[in-house]
């Protein structure tokens, strides 16, 4: 347990020390939020003030939150893990007396948390300004969105490790991150509330884990007080965490590395 805590703290300290990287993340995040919220506000304006029950203000808070949940993470993590497995770099981590996937997830959580804090705070200010000085649609629901954001990045990280573990078998998993990312974009509700999707696809999206990575915190921040979303996220975290551990355990047994 101490090893995981150290991994989280060390990674967080490294991210905080790299101010240039933080600045780029923040600039990129604010650009994305301003662009995507402009689009949705224009859509709400052209659609009688609401789109699938979301007002322009709710959509602004939705996008600011869904983007914070995803921009906080290393977008190419799957590629990086795949490269470490394919190149054999990961073999050095097998020598440690701690779970490889556990330490990796802990480090990534540590890297994501400072970014998440900075982006969420900036996102709240941006949402306030972009929506013409309107605060969050429901402050109580916004409070629930905070733990939901942390759960969202945790679910996303364990899912990426489970997904990237395929590199133990197919070696070249580099490009699969594109595919994964697109599921988060659309089925995960990052770019659009999943209620916008056609009925059949919406029902499928609600059954997939991607909704726990962006839609859940964004739905809460947009003024929908639905605490069950946190339970859904916790459930997916347990399931995907177990899958990631199983995939890495099986992969580590069949890993062969020449030289070192």
């Amino acid at each position, binding site marked *: 347990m101490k090893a995981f805590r150290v991994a989280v703290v060390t990674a967080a300290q490294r991210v905080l020390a790299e101010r240039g990287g933080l600045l780029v993340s923040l600039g990129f995040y604010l650009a994305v939020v301003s662009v995507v919220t402009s689009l949705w506000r224009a859509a709400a304006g052209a659609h009688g003030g609401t789109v699938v029950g979301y007002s322009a203000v709710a959509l602004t808070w939705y996008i600011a939150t869904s983007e914070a949940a995803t921009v906080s993470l290393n977008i190419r993590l799957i590629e990086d893990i795949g490269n470490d497995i394919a190149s054999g770099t990961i073999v050095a981590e097998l020598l440690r007396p701690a779970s490889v996937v556990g330490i990796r997830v802990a480090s990534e959580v540590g890297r994501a948390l400072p970014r998440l804090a900075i982006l969420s705070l900036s996102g709240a200010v941006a949402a306030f300004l972009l929506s013409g000085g309107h605060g969050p649609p429901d402050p109580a629901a916004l409070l629930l969105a905070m733990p939901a954001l942390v759960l969202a990045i945790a679910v996303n990280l364990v899912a990426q490790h489970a997904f990237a573990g395929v590199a133990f078998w197919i070696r070249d998993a580099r490009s699969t991150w594109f595919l994964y990312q697109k599921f988060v974009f659309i089925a995960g509700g990052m770019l659009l509330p999943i209620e916008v*999707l*056609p009925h059949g696809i919406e029902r499928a999206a609600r059954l997939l884990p991607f909704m726990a990575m962006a839609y859940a915190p964004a739905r809460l921040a947009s003024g929908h007080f639905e605490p069950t979303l946190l339970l859904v996220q916790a459930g997916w975290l347990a399931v995907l965490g177990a899958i990631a551990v199983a995939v890495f355990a099986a992969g580590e047994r069949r890993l062969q590395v020449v030289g070192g």
Partner: protein
Amino acid sequence: MTAARALAGTQRAAMAEAWANRRGFWTQVIAMVVNDVAWIAFWVLFFHRVGAIRGWDSSKVLLLLAVLTTSAGLVLGMLGNARRIGRLAVEGDLDAALALPVPPLAYLLVRRIDTTNLGDLAFGIVLFAVAGHPTPLRTLVFAAAVVVAATILTGFLVAAGSVAFFAGRNEAGELGFHAMLMFASYPVDVFSGAAKALLYTVVPAAFVSAVPARLIDHFDGRLAATLVGVAALFAFGGWALFTAGLRRYTSGAVWTRA
């Protein structure tokens, strides 16, 4: 003439290098095509739900995406180092290019093929053929507009990356790259006020996608001349900033392959 031949040879070698790993080549091309299809899905779903917005509907946005993916595929795929100028400058990786008897910027640009973005190039052409209502005239304007948009994008990326020569860091280049592609992939008319002005000036995203798409739909000689003028301005600006920056370039004489 000799320099042109050397540059053509460099690009052929870069292509051969990218093509050497066929499986990786096709995997990356297909991954980018899947990426682009997801964007198309987003826009189709969006307009299906909300209808037209400020004169933009799904057919106009598909034309905009055809121009953007083709021009960005051309620049980021065939001139792979265009987005890496800042990183190369900061990490002292330009030494090998400076020792060659060819213009360093031109050499750097043609030196690297980025396979993933060739998928964009292929996708953009197919998208125009399928959704761009191609006629001989529209195809001609599309081809010319893509070349001009690619020139603007290259000039902008080189200029943004060259800021690293002066700042010693590459954040401006990275941010410029992401901002340009982000803004260019959305209909320009959803923005207003200062944000819209920004897209026609500092981050000329409107000239990379929306203006060329408008020219294909409704050709206007004055607008076309403006577009060419902007391309000349950014091409010159990128070259001038890179050339001025080279005078400040320092490295630890690390011999790397740019």
